[in-house]
């Protein structure tokens, strides 16, 4: 049965839904703390700080993308519309904060590490791997910023309406899960490149 059919011919989502914030304000201090940490690590040009930001941010980013794309996504896709709505209300606002933060941490610190290690130098034997990782990140950025994140925010706005349209939610969630799957698959390329770089 299609999601739209499950939602009913009128496409309306019935039932009580908890109130929620599109962007959870209580999480913003943690985001600020993480970003300040990255700025301090770059300003001090300290190896440990940069490695910490890059490894922690990158580890979380990769793991979350893979987990959402290949574990959570298929499960959510098989849930009923009310269950999907319930899940989305609790899950999507957190993702809207976590993912941009860990991506910024990873890329900003990673670029400085590449510079410190001389990987940016075109004559360095690892230069091609770094450029390859930039290309992978570029593709992921286009998918995430043009399709995944707008779908994430749009579904939250739809869920805040007094009468959300189940068909709109189903379409946006499908877009979110497909793009999460694609970025998850691209993370495998990132893992290969990063482990190759430090080997």
């Amino acid at each position: 049965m299609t999601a739209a059919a499950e939602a009913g011919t009128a496409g309306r989502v019935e039932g009580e839904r908890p109130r929620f914030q599109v962007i959870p304000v209580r999480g913003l201090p943690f985001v600020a703390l993480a970003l300040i940490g990255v700025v301090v690590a770059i300003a001090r040009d300290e190896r440990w700080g940069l490695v910490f930001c890059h490894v922690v941010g990158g580890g979380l980013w990769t793991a979350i993308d893979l987990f959402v794309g290949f574990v959570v996504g298929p499960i959510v896709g098989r849930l009923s519309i009310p269950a999907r709505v319930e899940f989305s209300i609790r899950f999507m606002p957190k993702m809207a904060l976590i993912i941009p933060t860990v991506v910024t941490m990873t890329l900003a610190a990673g670029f400085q590490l590449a510079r410190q290690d001389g990987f940016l130098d075109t004559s360095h034997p690892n230069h091609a791997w770094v450029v390859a990782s930039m290309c992978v990140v570029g593709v992921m950025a286009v998918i995430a910023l043009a399709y995944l994140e707008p779908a994430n925010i749009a579904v939250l706005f739809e869920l805040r309406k007094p009468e959300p349209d189940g068909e709109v939610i189903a379409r946006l969630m499908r877009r979110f899960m497909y793009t999460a799957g694609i970025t998850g698959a691209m993370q495998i390329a990132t893992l290969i490149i990063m482990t190759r770089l430090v080997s």
Partner: protein
Amino acid sequence: MASAPAAVPVRPLERRMPPVTEIGAASMVAIAAGVIYMASYLPKRAPLGVAIALLAVAAGLQVVNWVLLSRIRPFAWNRFFQVAGWTLLAYAVIAGMIEYAFLFDHTRGAQLALLTAMLALFMLNVPVLVAFTVARYQAVDQ
């Protein structure tokens, strides 16, 4: 005298919209390619011709997007500007951090100007994409 016809709400899914997301994604591809091309040469200077061409493509696509957007009638402009404003704030912080990293790495001159212009386009593009996706699903009166 005949009275004006009553406003009829239109179901968002039934409306045809211009390909704003697709054009925005193409612009993002040009920006990403330009930034990768230039960043892959840092701290040395990349040949600027390719980067300028990519910048021009990205800017042109964004102008097309703004023109297409401005022609959508009716549209949930209040919601569009609300979402675009907050997204712009968030991406100004991210773009600011990237710019800081370029300055920290002693990027100067034409190279810095091009990277800054690409960052500015990136910063302006994401809010349009997010706000359009949200606003297109808002009910409006036809």
